[in-house]
């Protein structure tokens, strides 16, 4: 269990990080960014796995199973779609960005 105040600190810092990082993204990337952040909350899959892993009654197991199914869909779908979009962005200068990518 995480102490409430510690959680508050983490909430606050994470919110600032998200806000500051996104504030710099150019409009050109807004669609892939939307689906990219959509992918990142696919981490819910982990939570659903834990919930299913601790489910005890058949009903809980069923709900947990649906949760994992949905979470896996979120993560995998978000990734594929984002990757497909980003793959298409190319520069006319061949080799540009090699430096920054390294």
């Amino acid at each position, binding site marked *: 269990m995480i102490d409430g105040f510690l959680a508050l600190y983490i909430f606050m810092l994470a*919110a600032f990080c998200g806000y500051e990082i996104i504030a710099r993204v150019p409009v050109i990337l807004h669609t892939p960014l939307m689906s990219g952040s959509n*992918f990142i909350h696919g981490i819910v899959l982990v939570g659903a796995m834990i919930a299913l892993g601790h489910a005890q009654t058949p009903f809980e197991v069923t709900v947990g199973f649906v949760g994992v*199914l949905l979470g896996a869909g979120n993560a995998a779908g978000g990734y594929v779609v984002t990757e497909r979009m980003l793959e298409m962005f190319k520069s006319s200068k061949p080799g540009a960005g090699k430096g920054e990518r390294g």
Partner: protein
Amino acid sequence: MSLLPTLIKACYFLAALLFILGLKRMSSPRTARGGIVWAGVGMLLAVLATFFLPDMHNRGLIVAAVLIGVSAAWWTGRRVAMTAMPQMVALYNGMGGGAAAAIGAVELIGYARALALVDTMQGAPLLSPVELSLGVLGALIGAVSFSGSLVAFAKLQGWMDKRFVFPGQRVVNLLLLAAAVVVGVLLASGHVSGPLVALFFVLALLFGLLMTLPIGGADMPVVISLYNAFTGLAVSFEGFVLGNEAMIIAGMVVGAAGTLLTQLMAKAMNRSIGNVLFGSFGAAGGEAQAIGGAQKPVEASDAAVMMAYAERVVIVPGYGMAVAQAQHKVWEFAQLLIKRGVKVKFAIHPVAGRMPGHMNVLLAEAGVPYDLIADMDEINPEFAATDVALVIGANDVVNPLAKTDPASPIYGMPILDVSAAKHVIVIKRGKGTGFAGIENALFYADNTRMLYGDGQAAAGQLVNELKSLDD
């Protein structure tokens, strides 16, 4: 700490780090591709680590569910058309919200069961009050995001064309929300029982549904972005209940990022988020300004010649290009111009199309290098030195009434200044209006010529004319 738990915790930490670094890399087109891969590695690490958590039951079921979910989503995600991206994002987002709600449901049901067991026995219940409250809140937000996103998906997919409006709708929605909140507060204060939990989810799901139904299809991107932020928050709160820092951080980062994106989008449309959610766009509005003059048509051959001998051409795509799937032909045409020595640029308005960055994705799909693409602030001063501005399927984003007519629903929205160019050629099918449903003074301007036709067909004609010039 023994080795395995430490390793698992390290994986979660690495996942959170990779998510943030990945998002950072997504902020430039040069590094964006790498960014999603980094985030993907983080996700893989986190999921693998979770398999090795101690005390996990139902491992077989978990593997089955993961495999089914991943392969179904992977399969659809790979084959869906680029134009269907908005609804796919909505769908996946709804799934995430649903998963968060499911986590909340399992926790609540488990809590009710434990409560029944301890009953008269003393002993602390499973969750602390803070955990219980955040768990309920996360479940509420997640459920709303789930049903709301599914409606958004259905609308964008064309399964549900009409706006669903009835008198007193807002009051009903408000009552629903109030009821859900009251039940939620009951739950959070420890009165957890099976029926109450069921009622809670029914109310939340219904609210998400009814709140999204009256919103117009074209406003959906803003709504999807909002639900994206919602799902992030829900995930973060459920992560707190489960004591999982990676979920807390990733969810909160998305929550903040999504909120900001939603604001940016609404701002670029010169509307407030409240107006998107509750306003009836375009329904009100005063008397429209009358526009004098007539639209002057042009032949494809003449238009092609004008551009072939121009020095600078700026191409302004809009929603019509997306509908007509004309991006490939347009790029073919632009390449022919470039080969002739014409300086060609693409100018993109932040809300051209139906989601932010929509045009960028389509042009990228056609292979247009992103350094030929200019955004509004960059290109507006250059129109004065432009010989021909070719508008293809854009309407509102080039409508001068946004500057001149305070009664127009798009008044105040910044626009692309195409009328400053020497000549303007507009490709559209007829006299149809754009998203805002209003007339466009640009089409009647002296230096504007209309090239009527479907976007793809018209671009194809231009290509052919240009090729015949070379023969």
